[in-house]
């Protein structure tokens, strides 16, 4: 069980500064590569060469087509569960640091079990609707 008091201490904002440095380095690296590679190496074009490679077939139409709605449903379901997981993190951190076996712990546990039960309902509904079948 956690005993370290600094676990709950706030982080000074300046500790994020190295992330900013790394971000600048990464962006610089990525864009330098993307830009420089246009200037090194040959640049030729032609009618056949510019075509997309679709296993050797001449492409028919563009790829900007309608696609299966299941990806959309999947993304929406993902949102439900992802938000739930993110909400659980602060709870988990707090729950382990209060006295979990005491009265407050019971309230904490009961509330989150109710919260997870709502997600289970959503899951069962989705399952009954057949959105996890992917066939």
């Amino acid at each position, binding site marked *: 069980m956690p005993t370290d008091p600094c676990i709950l201490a706030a982080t000074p904002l300046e500790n994020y500064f190295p992330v900013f440095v790394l971000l600048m380095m990464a962006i610089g690296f990525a864009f330098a*590569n*993307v830009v420089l590679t246009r200037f090194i190496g040959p640049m030729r074009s032609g009618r056949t060469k510019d075509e997309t490679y679709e296993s050797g077939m001449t492409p028919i139409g563009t790829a900007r087509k309608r696609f299966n709605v299941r990806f959309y449903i*999947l993304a929406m379901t993902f949102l439900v569960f992802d938000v739930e997981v993110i909400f659980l*993190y602060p709870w*988990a951190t707090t*729950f382990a640091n209060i006295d*979990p076996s005491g009265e407050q712990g019971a309230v904490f546990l009961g509330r989150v079990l109710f919260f997870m039960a709502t997600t289970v309902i959503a899951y069962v509904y989705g399952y009954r609707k057949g959105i996890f079948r992917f*066939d």
Partner: protein
Amino acid sequence: MLDAVLDRIFPLSPQVFVGIITGVVALNAIVGTIPLLIYFERKISAYIQDRLGPNRVGFDLGLPILQKLFRGFGFWGLGQSAADGLKFVLKEDFTPRGADKFLFSLAPAAAVVPAMIGWAVIPWGGALEVGSIVLGGRELVAAGTVQVMAANINAGFMYLLAIAALGVYGVTLGGWASNNKFSFLGGLRASAGMISYEIPMGLSILVIVLMAGSVRPTSIVEQQIGDGAVWFILAHPLAALLMYTCILAECNRAPFDNAEAEQELVGGFHTEYSAMRFALFFLAEYTHMIAGSAFFVMLFLGGYHLPGVALTTPEETGLLAVLAKFVVFFTKVVLSICFMMLVRWTIPRIRYDQVLKLAWQTLIPVSMVLVVSTSVMVYLGRTLWWQTAVMNLALSLALMVIWPYLPRADVNRRVPLAGSRFSPLPGEAVRTGVSNPVALTDNPMPDKNQGLVSVH
């Protein structure tokens, strides 16, 4: 004026100073390790397939004098990755017709940037005691005890999860912008797979957060070290298994690499990419592997700790201890990556709908049950490592027992098109043509007398 500005800036917090140094060193170490990892992967795959793998390309660079010097010595093919990298730089940067030019260029950058900053919260080397740095009478860096990691922040796991989720954008944009149907499908598949496996990953990390009561990476590692504490993989084997599976899927590694299934999708979302833009996708994939493995090592394999070695405990804060811890940590990461490669070259790729089914029908329910069980264990105060291990194993056993009784969608079921030749409306008899009775009846040995065929 200048003094006032300098007074505001200095002395720097030692954590920031060490953090920047660690970040830059680790970034270069990671990018420099990737060619070696590619070499490892090719060698491992070669030995698994009873081949030799790259063993010719050395470092003679085609120069006659070096060729003479290294005669008969190929450096075990170590030059292969360097040659590949050079080739990436010199190749033509191709953009297909009809591609969205801006997004097509943006996608590799969007893939590689999150990969390169995601590991900032990995505690490579534990605590380090630093003295103050004084230059010209001004204290540049204050003295203190710091953590050898790029960003010592208390919301470390949230940061890692958030940045890991950003990796989806590069893949999706790359697939969409190419104007290639195969790329588009590959990008869709990759994004669907990555977001699906994010949920069980978050839930299995939650198990560890419940045990440790913190999302600060350093304290997670420290709680796996000491008397009565064990690595979390022993306390939570099921969570470790879930987590490793999810990391494989997040990195688009086999057996979940349907985004680039060659047999179906050419090259997946990077079919149309060439030169350095392709190399950036490749770099992002391998950096994800390193970051994911480091994450796994930090959560479940004790981070920088080696049992029985006093130098790798948090109490040691010298420079030597930090070096030893870094070596231990990186060795564990490389071993984990080698295990990923073994998995890739031994387990065949599973079908795409099975990938998503595994996430939504198996991993998410199992990890939710695991989270609930763990929180009940915490409530009951049963948090010794063997107690949670028994809980994990009992849960696994219970799942195996009830598995056959769970509802399950049928595989490859027939979707009838009502009114067609194959699925006639009720009471309708269909006269089949003579052209191809095998295809019409689904019957391997068709009746010679064609005519009215009963259609199921």
